[in-house]
């Protein structure tokens, strides 16, 4: 039996149902989320965008001064440690904020899109010192505000962000100027160029020449990040005498990098690569042409307007089929699970606070029966630790290709064991006042199979009843 529109909308295109939240009734409801969601600030970076730039600037200055002193033989190890600790703390708080954002946001489709694009433009927050603070900033200022407009705008915002340039080892400059180089000079860093073509725009299967890659890399080599202010500068690496790239000519102007990104954004290979990726993410590992083709048409017609492309996807009947072939990734599992428990917003805030004050793991019996509030150890284990154990730590993709969203990546003995373990822990910690029958309804709605309902009611303990609901195939598929 095919689940209702609302159930599929919540689970396949959102982070699942949450008691008290209205699930979308139709495609219009889902599309209406996008402009609304973009108007509300996410729960990270905690100090907001401007505040985070200030924090990062301050810490980076302190560290730059210390680094300079160290070179002169006067290192300050304590200061280095202290600033490292502060960056770690900032990151942990934001990582929890990312989970919280997905749990409490009523705009599930938008949140899923944000995650999709964060994987598309993958950056790892643990890469270097700066990224701890600016990867959350990257999501908040480059990805989230631009994910429903023209793809070219999103592409420029993502690539021309310090988080991306630092993550992909784009050359970073001290305040001194670089000597211009000729095209084709050796030691050109091609990492960013290759990733831009393979992962962010045309796709690895599109086919491009060595010259194309070298040209792209040459233009990108003009980009640099100031290591204190985090400002991006573009300084052309030299005159190019009309270098041709994919049929476009670049002359070494100060906006070559922008023009090149815009040109790449509207190439047909890019449209196909991204549309297929969207369908593969949301609907099926093997994206059906009947969904991809109308999206391509919308892309072409609108010059890459992502809102039109999403709409074209959702308008296809195949997007609503009952076949649940995809297995949800760990982040989705944890968020969907927490949503089913109807956590009160205060519980997470208390948790964040407890984590900050360093209460950490429990060493003594806890007084009282509060859950998150009194048990930061358990709360942490259910969120940040759980995602680490399941192989999807927040903002730490294993490579520039991002986390896999393919079914075979997340259907393994270790994964299933971790999820069952998580479900038991969550049931114990959060399920005291939950009735199993109501929980199945909250977690799965009309997506629950008969066998799941029967087993949940027959379970020997309430903990196991809730565990069965969360471990069920239909909870883990979409």
């Amino acid at each position: 039996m095919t689940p209702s529109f609302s159930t599929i909308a919540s689970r396949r295109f959102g982070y699942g149902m949450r008691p008290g939240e209205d699930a979308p009734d139709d495609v219009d409801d889902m599309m209406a989320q996008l402009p609304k969601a973009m108007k509300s600030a996410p729960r990270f970076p905690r100090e907001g965008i401007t505040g985070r730039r200030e924090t990062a600037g301050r810490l980076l200055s302190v560290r730059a001064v210390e680094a300079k002193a160290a070179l002169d033989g006067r290192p300050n190890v304590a200061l280095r440690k202290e600033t490292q600790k502060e960056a770690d703390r900032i990151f942990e708080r934001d990582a929890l904020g990312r989970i919280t954002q997905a749990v409490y946001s009523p705009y599930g489709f938008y949140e899923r899109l944000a995650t999709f694009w964060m994987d598309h433009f993958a950056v790892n927050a643990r890469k270097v010192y700066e990224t701890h603070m600016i990867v959350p900033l990257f999501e908040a200022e480059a990805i989230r505000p631009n994910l429903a407009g023209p793809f070219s705008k999103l592409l420029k915002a993502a690539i021309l962000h310090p988080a991306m340039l630092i993550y992909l080892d784009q050359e970073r400059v001290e305040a001194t100027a670089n000597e211009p180089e000729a095209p084709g000079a050796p030691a050109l860093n091609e990492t960013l160029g290759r990733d831009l073509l393979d992962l962010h725009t045309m796709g690895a299967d599109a086919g491009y020449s060595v010259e194309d890659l070298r040209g792209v890399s040459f233009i990108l080599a003009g980009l640099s990040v100031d290591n204190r202010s985090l400002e991006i500068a573009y300084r052309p690496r030299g005159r190019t005498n009309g270098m041709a790239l994919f049929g476009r000519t670049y002359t070494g102007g100060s906006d070559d990098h922008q023009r090149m990104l815009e040109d790449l954004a509207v190439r047909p290979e890019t449209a196909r690569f991204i549309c297929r990726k969207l369908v593969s993410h949301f609907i099926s590992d093997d994206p059906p042409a009947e969904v991809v083709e109308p999206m391509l048409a919308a892309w072409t017609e609108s010059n890459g307007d992502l809102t039109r492309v999403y709409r074209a996807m959702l308008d296809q009947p195949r997007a609503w089929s009952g076949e649940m072939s995809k297995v949800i990734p760990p982040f989705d599992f944890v968020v969907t699970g927490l949503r089913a428990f109807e956590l009160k917003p205060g519980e997470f805030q208390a948790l964040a606070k407890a984590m900050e004050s360093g209460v950490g793991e429990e060493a003594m019996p806890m007084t009282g029966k509060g859950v998150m509030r009194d048990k930061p150890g358990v709360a942490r284990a259910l969120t940040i630790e759980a995602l680490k154990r399941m192989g999807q730590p927040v903002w730490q993709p294993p490579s520039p290709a991002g986390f896999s969203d393919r079914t075979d990546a997340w259907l393994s003995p270790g994964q299933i064991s971790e999820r069952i373990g998580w479900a038991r822990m969550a049931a114990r910690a959060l399920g005291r006042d939950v009735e199993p029958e109501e929980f199945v309804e909250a977690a799965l709605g009309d997506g629950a199979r008969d066998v799941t309902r029967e087993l949940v009611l027959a379970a020997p303990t309430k903990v196991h009843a809730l565990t069965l609901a969360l471990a069920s195939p239909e909870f883990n598929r979409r």
Partner: protein
Amino acid sequence: MSFTRITRRGFLSASAASVMLWPLASRGQSATGGESRLVVILLRGGLDGLQLVQPYGEAGWSGLRAGLALTPETGLLDLDGFYGLDPSAASLLPLYRAGELGFVHATAGPYRNRADHFSAQNMLESGSGEGRLQRTGWLNRALALIPRSAGRRAIDVNASMELILSGATTTDSWTTQADTSLAPDEVDMLARLYSEDDGFSRTLAAAMPAAGSGNHSAIFDPQRRAAGIADMARLTGGLLRENYRIASFSIGGWDSHRDQKQLFARASADLSRAFLALKEGLGEEAWRNTSVLAVTEFGRALRLNDHGGTEHGTGSLAIIAGGAVAGGSVMGEWPGLSHDALLDGQDLAPTTDVREIAAAMLYQQFDISIGNIVSKVFPGLDFDGNSIYLRG
């Protein structure tokens, strides 16, 4: 389905009929000054009392439960010439012989439907009678009624959701990593949950220890489960040796709808280890002042089903242990297993209400008045503290 209310009369006649009914050492000998300890172990899933303590002296016993019933000739450990202990619990025998562990057979809580673990456990933990479900746990309500504050410190081990200690009086809780491994009945249900999904079925099978690699996850590891349960019991004992006086924890694994022989052996071995670890954690002195009560939400049907398991039943048994109890015997009125003696012709008819055993422990060890017990801890329970066997 007929409902056999355990009446005061029934309990009294039971006491008259059996040699020794009162499970505690006499009140005069019990500790005073807040040294008394009480541990309630909830055996979740429906313990088959007929398997743990088998009435091999019952006419036609072997034939009544083909495949499960044992006799001393086939490995049952004789307790008193009529009852015998399942070999899976052999490690409890020394405690039994020392008078530190005993059984009350044919017990039940108030629940009579056989249908639903949650309702039955709710009634067992809330101490409610039929039709008047309480929202708090009986052990929590009892706490407030203990005259000496030193006796009131209670801890809920490893489960923040246990109803039995929930309520107005603040209790502490300790979450250990102990019970992270699945009980055998739980694993069985997961296999059924995945049976219609090839991908999940295959993955679960590969995660099981049976897959051979030894590389399986901890949650499917029976040894780890056994060790975790023992750790939890030892930890509880340690907490009670120090400041705490009342504790509760759960041991599951009893819902043996399939392959009971194997499932029960594992659950029973886990439970046996828990008793020994609890005693070890308490140490000799504290153990002397301790009573332990292990109870389950319902028993199981007399006859096996088609899967080598048993369906839910009614009468089961309670286990009592500790230096403060008079163990070394199987107490309770034995109702018999003839067709007419069975409840609805299906399962062991209960003759003792488990709440009466708990009430006696609270009365004797913690000086909670009878008035409070029958009005606040177990409202409606027919409990008479003046009866002869209570005074010893």
